[in-house]
């Protein structure tokens, strides 16, 4: 039995989940009022964000005021939770497991190949492998990106320099949206990987502990 995830990290993780969901949900209420983004080129649209049926299905229409009120309410909790998490990882030294190093990128490719059954080798047995390090660090940077681009949309006169940095007010909105889509993508990969990794791994994120085997030779 091995201590894996400290209490603070587990709390931040599980608190973040509903908060981010609420931010995305209220964000969709806001986005609906000017839903201009699409995948396509010129007059050809492959996919529109979002089809009418999507709004209808989830009741996302006609809620701009509510969306803004929720967004500007939950943003504080989302930001504070993120700051607590980053502060904790920095002070506790946990960041050492999370921040990728030069090896991580090579290793991430191996993880990728491994997961798609293209490479039969053994993955390193560490707390987080290279792919995880990159993913978990990226998602924190994405969070920072959401705060920064959010601020640029929220107060575009006060922080006009931030808007210029991001390519303008309209670009900042697009980037903010893109990051939200990124979380959804992250969530889908993350959950499928957690399912693949199994119960012992999931339990560690709830209880903090995982079970490990004792090695024959070293008793470790």
């Amino acid at each position, binding site marked *: 039995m091995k201590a894996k995830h400290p209490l603070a990290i587990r709390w931040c993780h599980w608190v973040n989940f509903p908060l981010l969901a609420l931010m995305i949900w209220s964000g969709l209420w806001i986005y609906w009022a000017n839903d201009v983004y699409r995948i396509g080129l010129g007059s050809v649209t492959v996919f529109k964000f979002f089809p009418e049926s999507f709004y209808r299905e989830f009741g996302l229409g006609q809620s701009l005021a509510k969306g803004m009120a929720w967004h500007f309410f939950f943003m504080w909790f989302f930001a504070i939770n993120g700051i607590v998490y980053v502060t904790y990882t920095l002070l506790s030294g946990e960041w050492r497991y999370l921040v990728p190093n030069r090896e991580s990128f090579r290793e991430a490719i191996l993880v990728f190949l491994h997961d798609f059954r293209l490479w039969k080798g053994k993955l390193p047995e560490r707390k987080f492998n290279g792919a995880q390090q990159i993913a978990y660090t990226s998602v924190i940077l994405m969070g920072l990106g959401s705060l920064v681009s959010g601020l640029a949309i929220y107060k575009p006169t006060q922080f006009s320099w931030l808007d210029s940095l991001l390519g303008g007010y309209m670009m900042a909105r697009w980037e903010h949206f893109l990051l939200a889509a990124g979380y959804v993508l992250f969530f889908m990969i993350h959950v499928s990987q957690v399912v693949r990794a199994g119960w*012992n791994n999931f339990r560690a994120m709830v209880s903090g502990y995982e079970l490990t085997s004792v090695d024959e030779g070293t008793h470790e």
Partner: protein
Amino acid sequence: MSEMKKQPDQNETPATAAESTPQKTMPATEIGVTQPGPEAEAKPQTAVPSPAVPSVTPPDPQAIEEWNRQVRRRMSRQTRRGFIGLGAGMLAGLGAFEWFTSRRMINGIPWPFRKTLEVNEQLAHDYLTTGRLAPTFPPDRISEDRVNGDVGLDDDVDAAAWKLQVEGLAAGDEPLKLDLDAIKKLPRMEMVTEFKCIEGWSVIVQWAGARFTDFMRAFPPQTRSGNEFSLNHADDLPAYVSMETPDGEYFVGLDTESVLHPQTMLCYERNGEPLSQDHGAPLRLVIPVKYGVKNLKRIGTIRYTELRPADYWAERGYDWYIGL
């Protein structure tokens, strides 16, 4: 999942100190690895690096079984604890969510949300420099025309007959009635700024008109102290400005600080043309530090007031302040 494959050597009886209270340890510190049985004695809680002990003793299956049972018991205790914590947290979160969203409504949204918008407003007042200018653009960046919002614009207005009513002036109790020429006599200013709709789109527009502070100087409001009007004493001015269309259908409330912003103007020309009916002829407010909803078209009345004025969209669930 096998907790242990082989019993540790009897000669080295490593054990853990943290049997019942797994204190906060550095991550990945093993706290209960190799406890061979009840005879374990307390030792620092690290994995045993196993010195060169010859592994001669054959594994005792019973001891392994016993040891594994203990590990499993402790693991399930931790797991139970973890899931109870998570469950309690979820219930608390759901409860809080229920509570927040079911409170008494203030202008279309539950009061905790309304209060938070007001706190955000106070923070903006206290920590942001509201004098910062909105970015301006070269005229070749002007966007295609876009019209939105026609509340209060029923029927065309006759510019010749139109009068701007101004209330709350130093000059006395009688409201002042001005025609468009009175505004056009004020120093003319032009700017190209990005007009931002609360819906999330924006257009770059060229505006021409009179700076609001020039208008204020020409027709000064009643000061709080009763002293003579001066822009240098913004604290002595009424806290709010209210504006509405001639029919009173559309109305906005503004904080005086934003009205004093150097880019706030009474506008009579848009993209080089006199304002069209749908853009708010003959005179409209342009205030780049607010979303479009505050940029009232076809101004009928301007009122200086100490009372926070009603606002059309704030009554419909939106933030009253919406300072950009």
